[in-house]
């Protein structure tokens, strides 16, 4: 019978601190709650209290083809970005983990730059590049922007996953006669499965929500955030609350899934992303 020797914390209960924590939680959640509540309000996004419950805004939302077009566009860009970022991110993580080459330190910093630089910088730089290359702005340019910027996310996640990998497994595989290529497909990749899925989910979500970089690379077809942004300029209605509420619902679902995966892959929590800067 092994006992929990780590104590019941000797610090006594602090009601003041608990109250403060509740306030901070309220601050974090209240705007979202208000948003959702008013998506059901007949009389608009403001005023108090909300009096008339209605689903009309959701009905309007579902009939809004422009929104749905933009959602489809976002999905396409997000899916493509996941593919690109994961592939290049995996290779970059492998390279950082296993190879040494001139300029490796610089490469590492470069890959992580889009994470720490404000989005406008990356967006404008890519815009300049697009103009320089004579590229038309379209969903493709948006895809290039997302895919490139999010390599940093993929690299960080997969690098952490590689660190947890037992090197001896790969050595055993080689010892038993498998080539490095076979070892990669049979041993390395399966062990990274959870990291890959978690990274993919994160990239997908970030791409769906991305505005700053997208702002400067968008062409005729809008992504969802840009579509919403355009509407904000024209005037706000609870329909925007409605689509926002749906975004909240989907985000929560995704994070629950992501967190379960993260916990299983035994990598550490999101702050590693920050710590790796």
């Amino acid at each position, binding site marked *: 019978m092994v*006992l929990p020797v780590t104590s*019941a914390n*000797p610090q006594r209960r602090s009601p003041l601190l608990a109250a403060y924590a509740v306030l901070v939680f309220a601050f974090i959640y209240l705007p979202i709650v208000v948003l959702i509540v008013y998506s059901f309000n007949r009389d608009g996004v403001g005023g108090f209290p909300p009096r008339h419950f209605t689903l009309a805004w959701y009905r309007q939302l579902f009939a809004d083809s422009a929104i749905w077009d933009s959602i489809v566009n976002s999905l396409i860009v997000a899916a493509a970005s996941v593919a690109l970022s994961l592939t290049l991110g995996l290779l970059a993580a492998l390279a950082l983990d296993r190879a040494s080459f001139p300029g490796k330190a610089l490469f590492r910093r470069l890959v992580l730059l889009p994470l720490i630089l404000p989005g406008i910088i990356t967006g404008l730089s890519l815009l300049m590049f697009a103009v320089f290359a004579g590229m038309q702005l379209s969903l493709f340019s948006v895809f290039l922007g997302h895919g490139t910027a999010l390599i940093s996310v993929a690299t960080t996640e997969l690098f952490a996953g590689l660190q947890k990998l037992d090197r001896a497994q790969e050595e055993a595989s080689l010892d038993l006669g498998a080539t490095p290529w076979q070892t990669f497909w049979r041993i390395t990749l399966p062990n990274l499965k959870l990291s890959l899925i978690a990274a993919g989910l994160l990239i997908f979500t970030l791409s769906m929500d991305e505005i700053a970089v997208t702002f400067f690379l968008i062409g005729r077809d809008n992504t969802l955030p840009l579509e919403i942004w355009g509407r904000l300029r024209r005037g706000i209605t609870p329909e925007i609350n409605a689509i926002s509420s749906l975004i909240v619902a989907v985000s929560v679902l995704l994070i629950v899934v992501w967190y379960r995966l993260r916990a299983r892959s035994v990598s550490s929590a999101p702050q590693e992303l920050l710590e790796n800067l």
Partner: protein
Amino acid sequence: MSGGAISPDHATLGDALLEIRSVAKNFGAACVLKNISLQIAAGEFLTLLGESGSGKTTLLRLIAGFEQPTSGEIWIGNERLDSLPPYKRRVNTVFQNYALFPHLSVRENVAYGPRVKSAPKAEIAARVEEVLRMVKMNSFADARPGTLSGGQQQRIALARALINRPRLLLLDEPLSALDANLRKQMQSELKALQREIGIAFLFVTHDQDEAMALSDRIALLRGGSLEQVASPRDIYSRPATAYTAEFIGQTNLLRGEINNGVVRCGRLQWKTSEANGPALFSVRPEAIHLAGSEDDATGVVRFRGTIRQQIYSGASELLEIDCGENQSLRARIPASGPLTGAHEFVFSTRDAVRVTESSDAHELGRKDHEPQ
């Protein structure tokens, strides 16, 4: 070394310093300590010995103040101890992994206690010097704990605790992280230090050799209860229960019946004045010798057995003897060359110590099968 700088308030060994009165501790539904009553004398080196899960660390933490007893009281001198938070108790702890503050230098670590109580700077500096000298770590005063070896960290942890002149020092398996040789060396240094400064030490360990070497008294804990509290010599030569006999040192447990003044254990028998009934005896292997012709017939048990195994270990060897009727004994004799076949053996009846059965669910296995 003068006792002036660091000495307890009571200088005479034997005064009760800490009193644990009927203390029990539950964690939820789990009953970790059951009705413990124990006294620690001033200046005494008392060891809490037991397997993992026996409750010894919990008891230590109750005294330090990191847990509260579910029932019972702890007194130090004339004051109630368990109602005080840890920072108000004149008791200090040397933690198992030392818990040195990584962001402070050695000097700052050691000075922490006096600093926190706003002692004057000059006095702090002097006390730090003194206590570092005592643990022989002066030259490391400005180093960071992270740069020190395990043994060095252990000394600093000790210094950091002792500088506060506690009435009682608690040590939570402080040597378990050290390798064997360093451990032996630290054991003798620790013992010498304790003698020198005269503070009571309450030492927790699962290593019975360590307990035997260091302690004035050993308190053996099993499943949350005190099995026996005695000096090392007493606990070894007169174990109270079968568990004690097997936990400390090796032994042979002989189960038998007393009838009309005669004990019968399998093939063995001897006279006794005890009452009729079943009985359990502990006979240490070193008490059994090869019979010589001059052995006296009274006060001696003589038996015949076949040597099944002979395990050599340098100065002595262990014989596994088959006495027939499914009875086997172990004897430890001075190394004397290979032996085979049947021989006669003797042991003194004085060495057959009657022990009580160990209570409840704990399995009586052979000592080598016991978990550590």
